[in-house]
């Protein structure tokens, strides 16, 4: 399913990045980092028409030759980015949305841990499991 899942802090530094394979991790670093521009663009444009009721799901950020990058922003400006392979045609918008919902839920659960200091990189095992399950489906 997903080949890369990333959680990015409000200040645009990575909290968590997991790639399905280690060898192209660097590539995803670049991809995810570049997608932040699109996310910011989308947030800014969305902020004008609807003030409060913002759709968290940002949709397809941009397609590259091999990958599609999707974005999601929580109300606290935590960004989720999921990269899927372009060749994977079974994934539709609804599936991506549900993936993001799951990721968000996992993140919230992780955040509820009183020992986690918000803003630190995520090392939670259960959150990792959530992410890995999203990659293995």
């Amino acid at each position, binding site marked *: 399913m997903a080949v890369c899942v990333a959680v990015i802090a409000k200040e645009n530094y990575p909290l968590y990045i997991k790639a399905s394979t280690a060898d192209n991790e660097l590539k995803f670093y670049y991809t995810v*980092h570049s997608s932040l*521009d699109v996310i910011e663009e989308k947030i800014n444009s969305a902020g004008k028409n609807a003030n409060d009721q913002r759709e968290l799901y940002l949709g397809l950020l941009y397609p590259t030759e091999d990958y599609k990058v999707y974005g999601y922003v929580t109300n606290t400006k935590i960004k989720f980015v999921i990269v899927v392979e372009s060749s994977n045609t079974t994934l539709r918008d609804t599936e991506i949305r549900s993936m993001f919902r799951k990721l968000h839920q996992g993140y919230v659960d992780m955040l509820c841990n009183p020992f986690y200091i918000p803003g630190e990189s995520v090392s939670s095992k259960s959150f990792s499991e959530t992410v890995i399950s999203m990659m293995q489906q």
Partner: protein
Amino acid sequence: MAQHKQTAHDFIQCAFSPQVAVLTSNDAEQLCQKNNLSFTQLVQPFCRLTTEAQIKDPNNVLHTLQRLRIGMIDMNCQVSTPLVAKKMMNDTVTNEQPQIHEGSRGNVMTVGDYDLQLSSATPWFEAYRDVFLQTIPPSEHEFLKHCLACIFVVSSSHPEPLAMLHTLSNTQQQQQSQFPNKLPQWFSPNILKYYVLVHDMVEAEAAKAEAVYQSMKSSFGHQSCHLLQINSRSVTAVETTDTSFPDPWGQFLHKTPDNMEGVDYDGSASSGAEEGSFPNKVEEGTEKHAINDGLNGIGNNSTVIDHPLALSDSLPSPGFEDYPSLPSKGSHMSLSSVQSSMTKSGSFHSEKGRVMGHGMCLTASDQDRIRIFIHEFSVRALIPWAERQMRTLNELLMSRAGFRKSIVGTAKKWFGGNTNKTGQVANTATTVVYSKDAPELQMRRLADLAFLFQLYEFAYNTYHTAKRDFNNDHAWLHFAGALEMASLSTFMQGPQSQRVYPDHYMESAITTYLQSCKNEPYAVRATLTSTEALTSRGKYKEAAMQFIKMMSEDVFTSAVFQESDLRAALLLEQAAHCFINMRPPMVRKYAFHMILSGHRFTKSGQRKHALRSYNQALQIYKGKGWDLAEDHINFTVGRQYHNLKQLENATAAFKHLLTVASRQPAPQQNAFLREYLFVYRQLLMQEVEETGLQSNTLPELPLPALDSNATRVLTGARPLQPHDDKTYATGVWFDDVEGSSKNWEKLEELLVMSANGGSLPLAYRPSNALYSNSTDNKFNPVGYVREPITIEIYLVNPLKVAVTLTDVKLLWSFLPTIASHDKPQLITNETMLSAKNNLADEIVQGQVVKEIILQGSDRLPVKMTLVPHQMGELRIYGLTYNLGSHATTFMAPSQGPDSLGVGVAGSHKASYVSTVYVRGKQKIEVQGPRLNGKKEEMAGKMYGPDRRLDLSVHQEMPILQVSFTNFPKTLLCGEVHLVTVTFTNTGSIPLQKLKLASTNPKYFVLGRSEDLKLPANVYSISSNLKDNSAFVTCDRNSVKHVCDIDIPNGVLHQASSVSLPLWIRGNDIGGVHEVDLLFYYQASQQTTKPRYRLLRHSVQVNTVESLSVRAVAQRACKHSSETEHISVTDFVISCELENLSQIQLSRSHVREVCVRQISCSSQRWGVEPLSRTAHTDTKIGSRELLQVCLKSMVLSESAHRPDMYTFTDLPFQNTRLLSSATPCREFYLRSRVKLKSFDLETTVNPPSAQLGPPKVDPELAFESLNCAINLDMALIILWEAQVVDSAGEERTCVGQHHVIVEKPESFFTSYPFQILPKERPPIKFTREEVTSEVIKPAFEVLTQLVSYTMKHKTRQTHSFQQTRVCLLGVTLMLQNNSEADVTVLVDTSRAQQRLSDIQDAAGQALENSTTGFSWVGQTQRQVTMTPKQVLELSLSVSFSRPGVYNINNLAVFVSHTNDVSEMTLQKQTRPSVVSVLDKGHQ
């Protein structure tokens, strides 16, 4: 897209300007060469019309031409082949470097969190663009680059100028007709011919020129001739005058690349395969070879990090291999020929040298003449010609239009009507070939001409029409060209045009160029113009998309060519600039594309540009947590710097990779490390080469990390390890428990107090030997000359790979204290020079650790010692070592820190010698504790000073060494063991005032040296059984925590030693006990501070349970008939001795315990056996119990002195152990003394206790009363045990137990009760009312203040028949047990409840049952008794009938005060029985 010098309008106009060919005769050329210019070059700066010109379009509408620019090309100029063009482009880009390097330009852009330093100008791109447009190969589908005219130039000095002009004209004619494919191409068959006569104002005659000019006019027409007068200044004049006017030619001339910079872009950057193909480049120098070799050496690792975006198929190997081999043979030739052709004046140029400028012989009026010439040419000849051409072409087309439409239109309808006409038909190459004068091409020609002469509206219409035709004909190339130009025409009309800029035209043009025509250069050209147009309209996003699209198309179509890499790099960079120019700026996309661009630059060999791109991108990635990306950039940047020989920057970049605990996998980190080491070493070598000598200060290394604050400093030598049966004082070492330091401080305080006469000196502060993070480091640690100082440093390896440190040394600086006046010089060992190092070694001798292998993510303590040899201030500030990577093939086990100093085995040597290493240092910086005292300290983060690394070295001191012989590890509880302790002074100064302090002195007895001469028995033995008591003075106060140690003469000299016996006794409680001993000594000469030294010893003794003794003393119950003397004070003592040990196989255990003797020590009491039979069998097996009963007796009064004790021995065997002799007595004494515990809880007084009134210890307050029940008798049980140790061997131990019987009637044991720690009450924050408690003596005491017995007949015969009542006299003996005056009330009445409600149950019962007797006489009698007084009271009792009576039912009340109401009933349970017999019955 970056900001360019030219506006988009200018750029397009320049790119598509009317081209004019120039053909010069040799003499004319020579004339021009005086100025170091060819004719074309000469006129080039003036080719733009400064005035407006007028032109009529075919419809006779007048248009204004603005700033028309004419492109002049030399007809002889050879066409650049793709290879040459590529090289030209490469050169151009290389030469255009950013003028000012980063930092100086204040072009800072703040985007969100990012502060970016951007250079918005990209001159290299513009230069590239110009060259690209110049070298683009002509195509048949357009006429923009075709020459409209040809200018023939001869000089007036030519002998026959007219003939020459004819020849030239013929040459041109010939070329156009015979070699139509040869460049330059011509616009139409009848081009404009223009004849120019160049006249040298100085050398040639003006008249002749004028004559020739006249004849030219007559033969060619006056409008197509011009006389150009130049060179008004002679060559000689040039040399004398200084030409300072601006050089307008400079910007147009091709710069010749410097040889120096040629290195920068050789092909070896991206792949090794290319390297071989340009052998001429590698010849640059041997140094480069070395670098390349070096790179190859580490090349295996260099492939580890590859660009993630590198397409694996981007270099199809066979094609790639073939490509360079093709030109390589001819490359020399072609390159050189190109060079000369490019700059026609090349030879001339180089002959005269570079000093020569351009246009020296031209005065300002000459330049004006050239300007006039161009104007004349354009306005008089070219524009009218163009008007004519357009008109004819237009007429031609108009006439054919109708015809074409009918024929072609229907033909299409019939034959090809079904074909798709969208223009997007793929894969169909142009099959349509138009003839040269086909109407479609004429149309295009017309349009081009109109475009060139700025008739954009007309051009657009024409292009539009042509486009439709081409589309219908499926002539895709032509179609694309028309589309491109149509959109450009619209753009060029500017804002006044009604039409919207049709960017979709451009889009489809590019697509068509690329996909249908495979004509990449034109696609690129279209992209370049289109993006320029787009950006000028602010459409940055679309422009970026076009750049990226072009770039990505590139990859597939022409990946083979290096050129495409360069182009891709430039395009990507422009795309990146587009992103940053967007609103809002897309910073990250900018960064990403800069990286892509940098990668492409690398591949194309443009190292400087690559470096610049990566550095730009790094600004965005830096410090934002995108570690992998940051590492990648840093790595690439480092390598680029390395390639450019900027080793310092390279090192800095690589350093970044190592300092951050990166998330890279281990092999990657290994590569980083190696690369860093390699580059760094090169840098150092280079520095050595440059400066000739090594720098004095060592460079700082990033690895390994030092945990500076964990550094610990220990002064003094390492304690000796035990050997044989000797153990040495443990001293202080790093593994000491930190928390125990409080105990030591307390002991030290006691010692200093005792040495100082009971008070602490004013400036006293506890000394310390081990300085760590948790100690108070406000003061400098003190070291002594010739004594080692050991530093423990924690090395932390943040990487996952092992690193090797070799030749590790501490760095220090030393300021000697010399008595002389001149200022002492600071000495340090941070130097490379061996001579200086040797000198430093003499002052402070430092240990060198040969090798430390620090495994991945390891934390290793390293201990190193320094031995100062002079007094002074020693500051340890760093660590120096050789840093090397660890050879992965040889995995040596990490050595323990202890074995490090010993030296390295031979096998280890190989591991570090072979690898690359650099020498450097790291500083140790310790931070003091955070201050929290003042307000600003609390608010800010302020740290106190930490001086643990700044030692002051003092003069020599004596060094005490203490050794113990036969120190046991395990003892039985109560066992007494003899140990010899030896004190040796190993220092060179005599020592004195040896003292010892201990936390628990109960279990140690230190003898005198004479005692050692006695036989090694623990106890002294005497065979005299008769005299079994000894009267000894024992000062209880002598037992203290501190004791002095007697040494002969009071001084222990150098290397002399004293041995003393030391008895130790096992603790009464089984388990592990720790005892701390602190030895104190001073130097014999009075020295300055510090005066004394200390030596610590800490022992752990394990005690095993052996014997437990329970004893109870009961008042002797003597029958009055047996002895006449009735004592109220005798006691019977019954002891229970239990062997608690268990027999355990194969472990040491006690087999049996044999009680040797019971001794009593008391001031008042002695013991006697209860029976006279000798006890012989006193062996107690495991878990057996032995009961012994003894009798106590009062000693004679004379012995009663407060510090005198009598020891009475009761041996069970035929030898007597002297219990009053040394160890036994001392241990007994120690057991009696209650010393203040060292527990921290007790030393810290709770503050509440100090607030209240001073508490009186109830025990002390009523001492006089308490002694009533105070027995104060101690039993010493001396035993002998057979112990079987784990080896099965038996040995005999002796020991002693003490039971102190304090009170009668209660049990006492040999082992102290373990006081369970009381649970603390919850802390209350409210103030508690201090209730002043009236202290009362214990109830137990009050009831036993007075003991009494009744003395009477036990048998009374009375004849009840005679008298009804039998009277019996009873003497009540009262004894005051206490030391106070008491008031006694004897009440014989039955109403005991009257005074006290305490009922004696037994007495009452007796009374109830026996009513047969009653006391007669006075019922209450009150007496006062003095201390210890024995008083007799006569009472009488009457019996009414015979029987057995217990007459003890009277009550004795005692008060220790005069208050009668506080009287207490005395406890007396013993019956006093009287048998009354009736005489009559007998």
